[in-house]
């Protein structure tokens, strides 16, 4: 068996709303539909009343060009829109305005890519600009509901669709890819990932050159890795039982966290794609694209390099910080306030994530100002607190939102630096633990026990190297 056929191959089809737009893609209905009563943000265009005519949103075109350019796409200089026809109430005109790469259609852009951390290139086949369909609710479940309730508030919202080649080799690759993509889109200020339903994803996955399974209805980027892990395990377990995987579409159930087989009625040719002649073609000149590139905000990759130069972060730390625009902005605020920006980076990129993981919250929901991180970093770099005390202060600061300096004063965590005080402590520990002292004289490993006692006694306020030196000295004269 070749190594190629052992591999897992994953491709993604990502839909992102351009949430910074104030209006929908083809009409002036406001785009702020979340929390609005059903069918509030609608007009004749987005509910498709006869005679209404769509007109393209200028900013949607600008934003899509920015996205395509930052994802290394070749942008089409002449493009048209297509109708994708189907009978489903989420588009009341019975078609969706989209773009198409066949039957004479031209997508927005082709042949883009994103690089993963290890340098692997994830090819992006094409990008399209299209309208989001309406949201449908049911009485109970999709199977049991006797009728459906349609809310056209979302119908017509601008979406970009990005389709990857099957270049991802694991569910964690997919996570890394989506992190990079979302950080780019957030740095462009075109997407707010925090808005419910702003991104959605379909995934296809095949195992050891087997049949391809498509997973639909993954409603957030976080769910993608989970859905792929489930599907990978399912396919591996089928393979181990000698059952072949059938080519099918499965539905991700994010409540039960499983994929379920779904029979789709429409095949590609059933959509009867043809040009949307209510819209005129779009041409993008080189000058236009150059201007967009010129005005482009700083992208994560550039920011990562600047962070290393400006704040002396290591490349690893810089990479973690720019993974999420909120964290990157936050770290930059803190770094600017600190005399030790490198320490700020370590606190935010190394020490913070495990804490957030443990409490299941994100940085946004903590009541801690960037200045607090700056203050703690300064205290560490000036040697006012030991690493161990810094950790105590760090955790207390995250839990209570208090300033590091206040916690430090309250807890008396200043470093014990005069040698007389340290000697007194060492003497006390030796006196309290005569057995351990005997052991330590014979076996150097037992020194750690004594050191541990010293740290305990002083709540880690002693520099470990000084303590070790003193313990060794004292042992040698025993």
């Amino acid at each position, binding site marked *: 068996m070749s190594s190629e056929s052992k591999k897992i191959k994953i491709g993604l089809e990502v839909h992102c709303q351009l949430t910074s*737009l*104030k*209006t929908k893609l083809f009409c*002036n*209905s*406001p*785009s702020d539909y979340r929390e609005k*009563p*059903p*069918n*509030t*943000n*609608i*007009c*004749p265009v987005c*509910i498709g*009343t006869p005679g209404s005519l769509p*007109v*393209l*949103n*200028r*900013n*949607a*075109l600008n934003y899509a060009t920015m996205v395509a350019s930052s994802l290394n796409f070749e942008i089409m200089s002449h493009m*048209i829109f297509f109708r994708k026809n*189907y*009978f*489903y*109430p989420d588009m009341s005109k019975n078609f969706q305005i989209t773009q198409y790469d066949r039957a*004479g259609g031209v997508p927005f852009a082709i042949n883009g890519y994103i690089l993963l951390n290890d340098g692997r290139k994830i090819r992006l086949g094409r990008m399209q600009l299209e309208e989001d369909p309406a949201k*449908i*609710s049911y009485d109970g479940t*999709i*199977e049991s*509901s*006797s*009728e*459906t*309730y*349609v*809310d*056209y508030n979302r119908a017509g919202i601008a979406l970009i669709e990005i389709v990857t080649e099957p270049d991802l080799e694991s569910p964690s690759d997919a996570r890394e890819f989506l992190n990079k993509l979302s950080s780019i889109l957030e740095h462009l200020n075109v997407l707010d990932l925090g808005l419910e339903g702003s991104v959605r994803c379909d995934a296809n996955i095949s195992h050891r050159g087997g049949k391809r399974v498509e997973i639909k209805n993954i409603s957030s980027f976080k769910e993608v890795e989970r859905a792929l892990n489930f599907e990978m395990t399912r396919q591996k377990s089928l393979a181990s039982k000698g059952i072949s995987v059938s080519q099918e579409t499965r539905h991700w159930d994010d409540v039960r966290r499983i994929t379920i087989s779904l029979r789709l*009625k*429409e095949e590609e040719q*059933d959509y009867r794609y043809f*040009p949307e*002649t209510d*819209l*005129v*073609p*779009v*041409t993008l000149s080189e000058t236009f694209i150059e201007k967009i590139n010129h005005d482009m905000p700083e992208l994560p990759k550039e920011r990562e390099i600047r962070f290393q130069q400006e704040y002396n972060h290591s490349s690893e730390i810089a990479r973690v910080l720019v993974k999420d625009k909120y964290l990157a902005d936050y770290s930059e605020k803190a770094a600017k306030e600190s005399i030790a920006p490198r320490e700020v980076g370590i606190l935010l990129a190394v020490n913070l994530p495990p804490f957030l993981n443990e409490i299941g919250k994100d940085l946004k929901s903590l009541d801690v100002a960037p200045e607090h991180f700056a203050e703690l970093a300064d205290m560490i770099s000036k040697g006012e607190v030991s690493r161990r005390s810094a950790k105590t202060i760090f955790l207390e600061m995250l839990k209570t939102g208090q300033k590091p300096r206040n916690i430090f004063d309250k807890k008396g965590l200043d470093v014990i630096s005069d040698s007389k005080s340290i000697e007194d402590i060492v003497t006390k520990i030796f006196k309290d633990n005569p057995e351990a002292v005997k052991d330590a004289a014979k076996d150097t490993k037992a020194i750690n026990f004594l050191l541990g006692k010293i740290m305990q006694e002083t709540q880690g306020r002693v520099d470990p190297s000084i303590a070790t030196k003193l313990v060794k000295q004292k042992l040698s004269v025993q």
Partner: protein
Amino acid sequence: MKTPKHPISEKEVSHLAELARLELSGKDVTEMRLHLNKILDYFKMIDEVDTEGISPTYHVFDLVNVLRDDTPHSPESKDLLENVPKKKGRYIKAPRMI
């Protein structure tokens, strides 16, 4: 029977009906097939025109880049909802889909 003269089969008519969520009886399918094939035969006249070397026309005018500014208008939902035949609250009712 699939002959060049009758390009659409009964099976295809049934499939179309299913996609369009229409219920057709066996008799309807036979009749629709005849109608559809007549229409297609009629349109075949277009095939007689020689289009060799002519690029497709998507639009009759040479207009490009008709764009509008991203400025919201106040929505007109009240009048639009009055035209909706079936509602539940502010939701628009549609038949079940499975």
